[in-house]
Every structure is written in C-alpha cells, then in structure tokens.
C-alpha cells in the first residue's frame, strides 16, 4: 500500500476513534465509529487481508453499528447532560492512557523495524494444490479460498463451537429482552 494511502486510512481511523470518545451525542459517536471502522478496513485491505477487510465493513460497520444505533434510538438517548467532570478520574484516566502510549513507543523503539516483503505468489504455488495452486500460478491471491481451506479443516471444531456460542447468545438475548412478567 502506498504510504499516503496508509496514512490516510490510519488518520481516518484515529480521528474517528477520537470523535467517538469526545462527541457528546451518542448517535454522532456511533457514526464516527463507522468512519473509524472504514479506515480500519482500508488498513486491512492494505495488508492483503481482503476478506477480513470486507467482513470488517459488513459485520462491524454494517451490522454491529446498526445495532448500536438501533439501541440508542430505542432507548431514545438524548445528548448526555453535562455533569461536572470529576478531576481525579479524568486526570487518572488520561495519565494511564499517556503511560500506555509512552510504553508503546518504548516497546517499538526497542524492537528492530521490519519492512514488508512483497508476496511471492508463484513461489507459494508450489506448496499448494488444486484450485488454489492454479490461481496462485496466475499471480492472483485466492484470499477467500485460503481462509476457507483453513477454517473448514484445521479450525473446524472452533468454528462449530463459535456456532454454538452464537446460538447461546441468541437465546440469551431473547431471554434478556423478554419483559419480566410480574
């Protein structure tokens, strides 16, 4: 990914994030979060993770954020009324974030930098079989095929378990949202 594009998406993401925590109106916060996720998806795609990027848009920016907005509207939340901010928590919170950021920079400074190498798809084809190999030989990245291959073979059991988890979540939500009868 060209550097300007990277910085564009990165700044979009970070500014979106900052907007989320600084805007008082929850709807506005949710919408800035969508923007932030779009930037994130751009970064994913820049990392050759096309499927993840698409899913980030579809699931997060599309489905989950809609859910948030829906709930905000359902509860009919007004702009947060202003309360006198307590000094200690604010200072503490900012301090902790600052400390974290400094540490982050410190960690990055201690580790040697690593530049990306371009993907060598033709060479990778020798380790693959079937349709994936064909596509790779054409110097195209069969992203979805590769992910699917892994997901339905090696990660099959976790996948099933996640399915069950979703089912449980569904049932849980239904139970929780049921109005208590006396």
């Amino acid at each position: 990914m060209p550097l300007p594009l990277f910085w564009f998406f990165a700044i979009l993401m970070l500014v979106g994030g900052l907007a989320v925590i600084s805007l008082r109106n929850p709807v506005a916060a949710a919408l800035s979060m969508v923007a932030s996720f779009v930037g994130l998806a751009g970064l994913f795609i820049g990392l050759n993770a096309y499927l993840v990027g698409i899913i980030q848009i579809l699931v997060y920016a599309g489905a989950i954020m809609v859910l948030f907005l829906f709930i905000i509207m359902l509860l009919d939340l007004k702009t947060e009324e202003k309360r006198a901010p307590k000094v200690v928590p604010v200072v503490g919170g900012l301090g902790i974030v600052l400390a974290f950021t400094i540490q982050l920079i410190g960690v990055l400074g201690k580790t040697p930098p690593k530049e990306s190498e371009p993907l060598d798809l033709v060479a990778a084809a020798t380790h693959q079989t079937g349709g994936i190999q064909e596509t790779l030989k054409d110097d195209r990245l069969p992203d979805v095929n590769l992910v699917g291959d892994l997901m339905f073979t090696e990660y099959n059991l976790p996948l099933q378990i996640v399915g069950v988890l979703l089912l449980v979540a569904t049932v849980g939500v239904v139970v929780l949202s049921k109005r208590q009868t006396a």
Partner: protein
Amino acid sequence: MFAWILLLLPLLAAAANQLYLKRNAFIASLVSTGAVVATFVIALVLLGRDDAVVGPVSWISLENDPGLSLSLKLDQLSKGMMVIVTGIGMLVHIFSLGYMADDSAKARYFTGLSLFMFSMTGIVLAGNFIMTFIFWELVGLSSYLLIGHWYQKDSAADAAKKAFIVNRIGDFGFMIGILMLFGITGTFIFDDMGGGLANFKEGYESCYACLIGTAILCVFCGAVGKSAQMPLHVWLPDAMEGPTPVSALIHAATMVAAGVYMLFRVQLSLGVEIFTETFAGDVIAWVGGITALGAALMATQQNDIKRVLAYSTLSQLGYMVMATGLGGGDAGMFHLYTHAWFKALLFLGSGAVIYACHHEQDIWKMGGLLKKMPITGATFIAGTAALIAVPFTSGFFSKEAILHAAEAKPALFWIAVAVAVLTPFYMTRLVLVAFLGSPRTDDADHAKEVAPVMWGPLAVLGVLALISGFAFFNGIAPATPAHAGEFHVNKLFWISLGALAAGVIPAFLLYGGRSKDPLSIPLFRERFYIDALYDKIVVKGLQNGSAAVVHFFDEFVVNGLIVGGASRLAESFGMLFRRVQSGNLQGYAFTFGIGVILVIYFTTFWK
C-alpha cells in the same frame, strides 16, 4: 480343647442371656449357673492333666512379623487358680439364686456374672501379656457392670464409675510396663520372656537393673489398681455398693487378687531375681505393707459390715503384695488361696445377714444374730477364725508363710505383725457387735435363717476355710511355699499366737456387751481423709480444674486469639479490598489499565 471350653462357656452363657433370655430371668440364671458348674468340673478335670500351652491361635497376624497369638497356659498356678475361681464362682452363683431371686434385673445380673467368669478365666489362663491386659480390662468392665447393677441409685452409679476410672489409672502404668517389657525381652509370651531377659542382661549389663526395675514397677501399677493398693485403694470400699455376692466373688476372692496373681506370673516368667535384685521389689513390698497397715487401721472404725470386710480385704491384699515384693510370691499366692475361701465366706455370710435384716448394713443395728441365724453365724465365725489366724485354720498356715517371707526385713516384718494384731481386733469387734449380745433393732430381731440355697454355699466354704490350709489340700493351691501346711512350734508361732491374743482380748474388753462404739478415732473412720482429699484435690482440682483451664485456653487462645486473629486478619484484608470494590465500572477499567501497564513494564522494561 477343655481349656477353650473352660474359657468360652461363660462367654456363651453371657451372650445367650443378653441376646435371647433377657425376658426370661429364671432361665437366664439357670444358664449362667449351669455354665459355671460345668467350668468347675472342667477345672477339676484339668487339675489332673499335665501342664501344657493350648493354642496358639493367631489373633493379629502381620506381614514379616509374628504378630500376636492367643494361647492358654496350663500350669499348676493357673490350674489351681481356676479351681479357686470356678469353685467360688459356682458357690456365689448358687447363693445368688437365692439372694437375687426377687431382683427385677436378674437376667442382667447373671449376664454380668457370666461375663466376669469369662474374663477372670482369661486372666488366669492367659499365655501372653496382651491377653492378660485384654481380660484385665474385661474384668474391669464386668466389675463396673456389677457394681452399677442398681444404676438408678446415684451412689451405685458413682461407685461403678470410680472403680473403672481408678482401675484405668492403674492400667496406664500396666500398659507402659508391658510395652517396656516387650522392648526389653522382645516378646509378650510368658514362656519366652525369661530367655529374652537373659539375652538382654548379657548385652546390657549396665542398665539392666534400672530398666527392668522400672518396667516391673510399671507393671505393678496395674496390680495397684486392680488389687486396690494404696494410693489407688479408694475404689474398693465404694465398690460395696454392688450386690453382696458380687462383692464376695469379685471384690474379695478373685478379681482383686488378680494383681497378686499377675505379679506371681511375672515372677515365674522372669525369675524371682527381678524382685530381689532390683529396687522394684522393695517398692512393691513397702506399698503392700503400708496398704496392709493403713487398711487395717481404717477397718477398726467402720460400722458398715461390708466396709469392715472391704478394708480387711485391702489389708490382706497388702499382705500378699508385700510377700510377693519380698520374693515370696508363693507365700503370697498361698495366702491368696486360703483368703479366697474364707473372705468369700465372710462376704456371703454378710450377704445372708443383710438379706435377713432387710438390707440393713450397720453392725450397730444388728446384734444377737447368732441365735437367729445359727448356720450363718457359725460359718461366719469359722471364716473369722481363719482370717484372724487361729491355729490350725487355713489362714493360720498362710499367714505364717507370709511372716516367714518377711523375716528378712525387720521393718516390714513388724508391720506385718501389727496387722496381725489389728485383724483379730476388728474382726472380733465385728462378730461381737453383730452376732452376739442382743438384737438392737426390729430388723435384727425378726431376722430368720436364710434358705438352704444360700446357707449351702456358706457351709461348704466354712469347711474349706477351716481345712484348706492343710498340706493334704496343697494339690489344689496355685502355689505353695516350702513347708506349707506343716505345723512347727517356733518363734513365728509364738509371735503370731501373741498377736492373736493381743488383738482378741482388747476387743472383748472394749466391745463386750456394748451397744455403741466406745472408741472414736475420726482419722481412721474418715480413712485418713484420703478419699476426701482425692475428691477435693484430684477430681475437683486437678481434673476438673485443669480441664476447665485447658478448655478456657482452647476457647480463647487457640480458638479466639490464633484462629480468631487469623480470621480478623482475613477480615481486614477483606475490608481493604472492599474499598476497591467500588461498584464503579470505570474504576475497574482503571485498575485493569494499571495492571496492563505493569505487565508490560515487567515483561519488557524490567531489568
């Protein structure tokens, strides 16, 4: 085979009584009596057989160890003792048929008697020390049950409890002694002990005398408890709360003599040197001597007919123990043998008197009973004659043997002589007050001779009391000293005759025709205040007091300070963390953030 039957028959009778015959007291009493008659016959049969060790039957078997076996040892000592035990047991059972005829718990009574016969047989026939201990405890149990026969009476229940606990105190030492002997000789079996001791003596000459002396003294503790020597004598007079035939059987003739029997068994196994060559012998002899003298003094001031006899028993047991400690165990056993007959007779006689006087036990409320109950009276006087060692009665011969054994130690010898003066004194007092003179209460006035089932045993015992000392009967005695039953006119004879006269004549002068005790010596009447002292200091002070103190410490120091302190510490930690638990979501997130930063710091930047 016979030996096992001898041992187990009474147990079977007891079990049958307890399990099946509780409701049918009459049959229960017959079953018990039948069993004891059968055992008496077997004991007589065994007397004619050779010595043997029957068994062994494995009781505790272990890997790589001989374990423990049960075996029955038949020798002259045990065979003779069995004749005494079963013989007196049989007569007491028969007597009880009459004495306890109207008791509401007759079946329980006879069950207890059978259990006692079983346990006593076990002590006598035991082939090793653990068996002795087992049956030692079991006689304690049967004694407890029988003393507490009328357990709804507070005094009887207390006396039973006291007897058991005091015996347990003796057993504490007994067990230690057994274990030490086990450590020294490496075995519990009587027959093997001598060899083990000899090996030990060769190996460790230097510590031999000290160790074996200590061990023997510990073993002697058991005898102190069971044979009611000072300072553990206090249970025996209280034990008179039990039915009188029980007193005759257990607390006069057999069980209380078990201590002496056991000591003699130890002497036979380990050799008489353990008494004569170590300090143990002296201690034992002195304990016996002091008991003999102290109990005789107490007996002079008792008014309860059974208590007089009880203290007399104590005193005679002291005699036997003294003789044993001096190395004259055979003299002690010989006295045990004659004493068993005449003391059982005296107790059964007193039982008949009490029965006839409607459970009146105070001798000052009797009087003139010889005329009302001629057979009982005559046999009682025969028993008294034997006890006070009138020449040619059985007691005369055995007391002679004991005096002979004590001759080597002048101090003990003169104590023994003093006892020989006191015994005629208090027994003459008893006979004069209870049997002669005129009746002093209605109960005594209306007394009638008891039924044949009761005077029959008295008559048999009366004859035995007079003649069992003669050499002709030595065959059934468990042990006989040299020259037993022979009559010589020598220094000892004159001394014992003099002692007899010195006891009887003052008693006649003092008590002839009196209706009140002319003497009052509170020190003797109150038993040197030993009982009161025990009650105040040992029971109330030491036992209950220390229990209360320990309880206090347990409650407040262990439970309160240590445990409570730990719990309060935990509680204050809890209070500390409770602050953190503010319920504020962001507070938790904040803490979490601090944690993350610390983890990063320690994993990446530390060091």
